[in-house]
């Protein structure tokens, strides 16, 4: 799979999660990664399952949904190019909190959660940067969720 590396390198350097790392750090990450093509409609992972890999979307969109009895799979968020999905794999045992399905044909970089964690252990500086970035991803995710919760367009709410 070595031949894929220059491609992965480019994809990683374009993603907000992994941009602006030094070359050595990017190379290490590349070694922990693979390119993952996902045709439209394909399930990337399922809510409740253990998953070691986290994904950086290079192109295409992924729908994140949760299963709600009586309502089926409810789509809560669409992630797109540059976004990180399946982050649970980076910080825990990787039990997925949502189901991810490709909304269109996607290309993703799949990073091994275990390998990345090991990298972070051995290179605390990389670990620090990645964890800060992960925190940023999560904080954006929380903000977006809060804005959803506020239901700003509800009838009788703001007239806009």
């Amino acid at each position: 799979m070595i031949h894929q590396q220059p491609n992965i390198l480019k994809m990683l350097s374009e993603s907000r999660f992994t941009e602006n790392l030094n070359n050595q750090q990017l190379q290490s990450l590349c070694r922990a990664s693979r390119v993952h093509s996902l045709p439209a409609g394909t399930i990337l992972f399922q809510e409740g399952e253990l998953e070691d890999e986290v994904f950086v979307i290079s192109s295409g969109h992924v729908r994140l949904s949760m299963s709600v009895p009586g309502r089926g799979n409810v789509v809560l968020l669409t992630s797109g190019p540059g976004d990180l999905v399946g982050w649970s794999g980076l910080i825990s045992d990787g039990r997925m909190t949502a189901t991810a399905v490709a909304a269109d044909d996607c290309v993703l970089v799949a990073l091994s959660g275990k390998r990345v964690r090991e990298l972070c252990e051995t290179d605390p500086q990389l670990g620090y940067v990645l964890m800060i970035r992960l925190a940023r991803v999560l904080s954006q995710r929380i903000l977006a969720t809060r804005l959803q919760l506020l239901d700003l367009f509800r009838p009788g709410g703001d007239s806009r």
Partner: protein
Amino acid sequence: MSNPWQLSSARIVEKTAETPGVATYVLQLTDDSLRRRFQFRPGQFNMLYVPGLGEAAISISGNPIQEGLIPHTIREAGNVTHAISSLSTGDTLGLRGPFGSSWPTELCEDRDVILVAGGIGLAPLRPVIFDMLSNRDRYRRCTVLMGARDPSGLLYESDYEDWKRRGVDVLVTSDRPADGWHGNVGVVTTLLDRLPLPDPASALLMTCGPEVMMWYTAQTAVARGIAEESIYVSLERNMNCAIGLCGHCQFGPHFLCKDGPVFRFDKVASILRISDL
């Protein structure tokens, strides 16, 4: 100087249902000379008047260069807009205007222009879109990011394809999950988050929607490298007189009716998140 309280009679020449509770009313001033003289800049509003019920400030949602026809896209919210909703083609109402500041279309030349709209907030931005479509070559990338509570709230949805065809990119999102919706889910800031921005320094962003949405849109834009000075918001308070004399629409040092509704973000950023201001 003419009396700023004087109303003119305007006839509804076309009424189009848009999203639930929202319709577009194309008005025409009944007086010929007034009709010819009427001009507005994108983002300005009129006071629409229903006798016995009062006035409501409504943004003009039409094409600034189309003479004589003044569209307003109105959501039923209070007594006046409710009364307007019961009117039909041929009915008349009172009109004063146009009032207020406008979107800085004159600053957009040769820049990437991003419009971020929430719900009916697209209506005050539509004149800018008309301007982009007419003068597409004057601008670089033109993008409309449109969010709504659910897909049924996507204003002017039937026009999106036409806009795209004519070079204005339109990305839409539904705030909430919706059955049968295969488009993007999530608030509109998430669209801005991942919008390719090769040259953020040249970008100019205009946003209109709920105040909280605009604030976080601006925050996201700044995080993406767009300068506060290149972000414009359209604020809302209750405009009563529209001429800066009644005090209702004050927001910090500003009278929204005459200093606004459109503000450069950096001029209002310091007071936007002070509660109950």
